[in-house]
């Protein structure tokens, strides 16, 4: 039975529409104009317990709005939503004990106090006995490689240490459903890797369900066997990253190093020529024709070196959204 079930979910925001400059300000003061923005529209999907699902999409696609609806922070304007058997917007205590929402740019830790003070409050609020809370803090701190940092004021911690402490605070009550909005935002490569490893381990140990948004494709490829791709508030893809890649980029990039330069028109029948300068050539070749094309290239051209690459997914997704925006 799915732990998240949403059907036709929608959310519309009412925002002020003001022109810049003094005249715009005065007009806005006298006659306030507002417009409706449909942040999420007709979104339907289900998630099974224990899954780690990546939520992809460009800025303003509706990812964060969806997470806010799933966690109960905001009310949907249309559609139906069930999370762990609860209606999130009611925010009843039993539901709140099951979930956590981590927002990379926001914090729940008290800024001027050490994380341990915030953790003590969380332990009391979630009714975790002192001994259990101490044990969990030790375990999570060890997994996150946090030690004396827990006794330093939050404002004195580095971004990475703070994010780890935020994760610890968010997971102290052992939620079975994690909503993570850009949990590695602004972290360096090492800290990103540590957070990813921690999340994978947490999912393995507790069987928690994770829904993750990230602009770092590394987070998605490392953690999410399944991705939901949304654009303009609607679902564009629901499936594996591999399937997404097949769907968005049905070609491979072939790089050639030639023994002697050849004219560009010489590659006309092989695929789409991306680059041809001196002895260096780059072609886009359809997946289905890859083996045959590589064979022909080796037979017909003076090839010194040949490399086949999958185009970076970020680039492909970016290209797709750009194309859709231009046609819209």
């Amino acid at each position: 039975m799915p732990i998240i079930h949403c059907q036709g979910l929608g959310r519309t925001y009412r925002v002020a529409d003001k022109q810049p400059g003094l005249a715009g300000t005065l007009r806005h003061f006298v006659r306030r104009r507002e417009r409706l923005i449909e942040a999420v529209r007709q979104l339907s999907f289900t998630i099974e317990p224990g899954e780690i699902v990546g939520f992809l999409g460009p800025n303003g696609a509706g990812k964060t709005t969806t997470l806010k609806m799933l966690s109960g922070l905001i009310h949907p304007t249309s559609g139906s939503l069930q999370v762990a058997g609860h209606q999130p917007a009611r925010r009843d205590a039993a539901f709140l004990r099951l979930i956590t929402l981590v927002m990379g740019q926001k914090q729940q830790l008290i800024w001027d106090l050490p994380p341990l003070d915030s953790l003590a409050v969380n332990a009391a609020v979630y009714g975790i006995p002192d001994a259990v809370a101490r044990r969990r803090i030790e375990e999570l701190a060890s997994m996150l490689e946090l030690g004396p940092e827990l006794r330093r004021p939050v404002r004195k911690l580095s971004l990475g240490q703070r994010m780890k402490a935020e994760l610890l605070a968010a997971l102290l009550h052992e939620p079975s459903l994690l909503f993570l909005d850009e949990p590695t935002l602004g972290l360096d490569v090492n800290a990103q890797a540590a957070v990813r490893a921690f999340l994978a381990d947490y999912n393995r140990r507790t069987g928690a369900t994770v829904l993750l948004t990230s602009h770092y494709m590394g987070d998605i490829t490392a953690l999410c066997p399944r991705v939901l791709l949304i654009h303009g508030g609607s679902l564009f893809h629901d499936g594996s990253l591999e399937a997404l890649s097949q769907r968005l980029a049905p070609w491979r990039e072939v790089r050639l190093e030639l023994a002697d330069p050849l004219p560009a028109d010489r590659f006309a029948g092989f695929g789409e020529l991306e680059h041809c300068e001196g002895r260096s050539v780059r072609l886009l070749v359809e997946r289905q024709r890859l083996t045959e094309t590589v064979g022909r290239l080796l037979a017909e051209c003076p090839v010194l070196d040949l490399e086949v690459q999958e185009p970076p997914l970020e680039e492909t997704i970016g290209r797709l959204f750009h194309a859709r925006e231009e046609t819209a």
Partner: protein
Amino acid sequence: MRPPARAGAPSTDPAAQQLRRPPALVRRCRAAWRITRALLGSQYALMLEYRAEIVLWALSGLMPLLMYSLWSGAPAGAAAGLSPQQFARYFLAALVVRQFTVVWVVYAFEEDNLLGRLSPLLLQPLPLIWRYVAAHLAEQLTRLPFVAGMALVFVALVPAALPPADPLRLLLALLAMHLGFWISFLIQYAITMLCFWNERASALERLLTIPILFLSGLLAPLDVFPAAVRNLALHTPFPAILYLPAQLASGGPIAAGAVFANGLFWLALLVPLNMLLWKAGIRRYAAMGA
């Protein structure tokens, strides 16, 4: 077959465990006490970080002292039947009561709302109001030594201001002062809820400055006002914030029962009003900046 329990070892029998568990009410009270302790402890630690700022806030509450210096030579007091000693006692009490009934929840909430700090708190199984109440109580605790110092200076300058030595009345005044804090808090919290409709609800709160100044008894005891104004004031919640507890503490002509009846009446109105506003407002929450 179940193995025999070791002597002295806690039983693992669920039925026995159920029997040993304290009643639900006791468990709830314990949980509430633990949350209260944790919230007050963390907020007190936070307020100590800002102690210099709190001293300045406390000093900004010296208005009753200034008002005393203005009123002590004025004939209006005598006309209202108040002796210089009654004036002195009233303003000393007002100085103390004012320090413990001042609220700032609208500013804290508005900032939390605009900066997106509200969202993580809304996702915890604790009504948001308790965090702000705890912050206010912790701040009052931090103010305590400074207020005691100011009161001592007042008494040193005006020995007649010392209230009558009636422990019961002083205890009742303390309770009335706390009731006044709740009324003041709930009035401002109701305005705070307007943050869900208008991001700058604190601007609306400023509209209350004048009524609080005049009708709460901050500028002068209500007794010196014309009867019509006094009657009007007594039909608002503002006297409960300062005038009534201060009268009780200074030994003024007022019955404790009337003070508490008045306070409870306003509480009975303000609690459901706040609940209604919260319920309506939270539906509009857009989790800005988060």
